């Protein structure tokens, strides 16, 4: 033990120096860019292009810095509190900005990055291919969406959480937004951006280290576009109370069947009649 202590001090000292004197400035900038690319870029650009949300060039001139920081940290609270600008933006862009649990330090580094990058450095991760969508893409997207084909990266299937009203697709989950009209709500760039680079915490977690390939994104966008365009033609059957009733009747039939199959079963203790005679304390 005593011999080990000296070696430990030798290891600890350099670490202490590293923690005490970081190259603060450089690291903050790098963090801001990293954060913007991984979380903000799905919906925002640093020029004036509108994606899902507004382009952010010159945003620090248009808005108060404190207001911007609170939008980045807690957009849901701002809307709930009835902030006029936030609610006006919501009415214009239709999609509420999610609360990503950003800390104040992170928010400031992102804001600094936006200010630095404005105009000159355009961060726009979404590259739209001009090629028209093909039938194959739509079918491939449908297969991916409902899990007939697995995502190459091994990520979870879309309809585990999302539902799309489409006769060809089985019912999906209700854990996340229903996606039938997502295309008209967000447009192609928005949908692409969210699939390729999800800004939502749970979706991020679900697809961490399980990236969706470019081809898959194309196919899913194509499928969602088709589903949106044709939604009026699709009328999935609504089972309503009938499904419940069928289940109830089915289980009744099974119970009757079981009671016939196991009619000779041992039903109670062999001494049950003795026990029922016994005096109880309660």
């Amino acid at each position: 033990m005593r011999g080990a202590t000296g070696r430990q001090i030798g290891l600890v000292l350099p670490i202490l120096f590293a923690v005490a004197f970081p190259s603060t400035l450089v690291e903050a900038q790098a963090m801001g860019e990293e954060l913007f690319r991984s979380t903000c870029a799905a919906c925002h650009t640093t020029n004036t292009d509108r994606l899902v949300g507004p382009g952010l060039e010159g945003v620090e001139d248009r808005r108060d810095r404190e207001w911007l920081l609170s939008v980045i940290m807690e957009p849901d609270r701002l809307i709930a509190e009835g902030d006029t600008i936030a609610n006006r933006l919501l009415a214009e862009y239709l999609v509420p900005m999610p609360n990503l649990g950003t800390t104040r330090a992170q928010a400031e580094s992102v804001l600094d990055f936006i200010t630095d990058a404005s105009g000159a450095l355009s961060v726009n991760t979404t590259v739209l291919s001009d090629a028209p969508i093909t039938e194959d893409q739509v079918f491939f997207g449908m297969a991916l969406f409902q899990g007939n084909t697995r995502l190459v990266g091994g990520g979870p299937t879309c309809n585990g959480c999302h539902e799309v009203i489409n006769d060809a697709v089985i019912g999906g989950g209700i854990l996340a937004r229903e996606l039938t009209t997502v295309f008209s709500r967000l447009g192609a760039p928005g949908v692409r951006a969210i699939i390729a680079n999800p800004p939502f915490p749970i979706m991020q977690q679900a697809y961490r280290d399980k990236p969706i390939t470019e081809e898959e994104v194309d196919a899913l966008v194509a499928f969602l576009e088709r589903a949106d365009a044709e939604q009026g033609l699709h009328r999935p059957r609504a089972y309503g109370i009938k499904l419940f009733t069928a289940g109830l009747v089915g289980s009744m039939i099974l119970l009757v069947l079981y009671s016939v199959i196991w009619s000779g079963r041992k039903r109670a203790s062999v001494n049950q009649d003795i026990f029922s005679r016994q005096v109880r304390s309660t």
Partner: protein
Amino acid sequence: MDVRSQISMVFHLDKCIGCHTCSIACKNIWTDRKGAEYMWWNNVETKPGTGYPGKWEDQDIYKGGWQKNGDGIELKGAGKPRSLTNIFHNPHMPVIDDYYEPFTYKYLDLIESPAGDDQPTARPISMITGEPMDIKMGPNWDDDLSGSPDYARNDPNLKNLSPAEQQAMFEMERLAFFYLPRICNHCLNPACIAACPSGAIYKRGEDGIVLINQDVCRGWRMCVTACPYKKTYYNWSTGKSEKCILCYPRIESGQAPACMHSCVGRIRYLGVMLYDADQIERVAAADEPDIVARQMDMILDPFDPDVIAAAKANGVADSTIDSAQKSPTYKFVKEWDLALPLHPEFRTLPMLFYVPPLLPVMASVTNVDNSEQAEKLNDISKYWPDNWLYDTSTRELFGTIDDARFPLEYMASLFSAGDTESVADRLKKLMAVRLHRRHVTVGDVDEDTVAAALSNTDLNGQLADDIYYLTSLAKFDDRFVIPPAHREQAIEMMEFTGDAKGSTGFGFKVGTAVRGA
């Protein structure tokens, strides 16, 4: 001839005093832990009685054991098709109330209760739920004929008796009972092994002990249904089944199993018997009256040179053969024909044998005038002014077997699949030995009676003395002849012991522990 060795047991029921010491010894060593509280790998039952779990002998309820199917046999309540269709719902299993809900008492309340107007009481607490409970049952609830109308009267072995015979058995003056200690029979044709869907149960090759591998058991509980003696138990805590292991760690080190070692009445005997495994299938499928005789035929003479040669060819150790030649169980079961298996009609070929109880205790109260005696008593003494009498004694000292206090049909139902003759043979021998010894030690039995009794049972004075010795005088090493386990050979089959040579013991350079650090 496929000669194998089996550690077999003999319980001499005439000597059992029903003290449950065996049960407690077993409990303390093996089943005093969570999930096993209700298990009694060894239990002692009063007969007549329904036993533990209740009515375990009634296979119409529990569907245990084997039944004849054409020329062969099949499991009554388990087996492949039944196990598969019932795998998630085993319909004939005993419930906890068939055993009993294990309980203890909240003793601490007796000393920690605050002062009050009432005496504190120790409430019964369930050992399963930990909640206060009403005790409904215990593992020996019907001990000594308690609750006879509910328990003894419902003994499944009474079904072959006529109502008049049953009535006679339960007349107050004739009422008798004996004890039946039970452990796993370590059968030659175990239903539990045949029923296990996981293949977790096995019969050890070297000594025939039946064990459940806890690493393989998946808790399907088919063995619980299949064992007609209800000697496999499900541990609700581990989710696996357990059973008597015949204290194999003790046997391997040359000690008698705990239940046998602790037996106060010294009723238990343990020794090796050689048997012919080729015959198992045919004997198990024999017609009911023949099963016992056929099982006895399976057991081989350890002095026969052919048997010894075949045993050696099969890998049976010389020391095991030597043990078989000295085996007390071989003497009781085969040489003297004194012991019988319990419920051979279950067709599992149990290797625990019972010397049936003779129960000769007779009482005779004659019509005497006891007024003179009453005069001597003081005023508050209780005395009976009426001179009522009863007499269960017989003309001769021990009476005859046909006058036995238990109808032979009852004994036959327990020990010989209904064959009264084989039970009567054994009882007559026991009686002859007693007459002989009475003649030798007391001398109030005349010689002709003794000679007749001995010759009727193919015994002679010397044999009777041998039986008497092993019954009454036998020392520890006479009662338990345990073959060496040869674990050193077993381990050499699996690993090279040279690898460990020089790596344990003294002479190692390791750091010295720092004191007080």
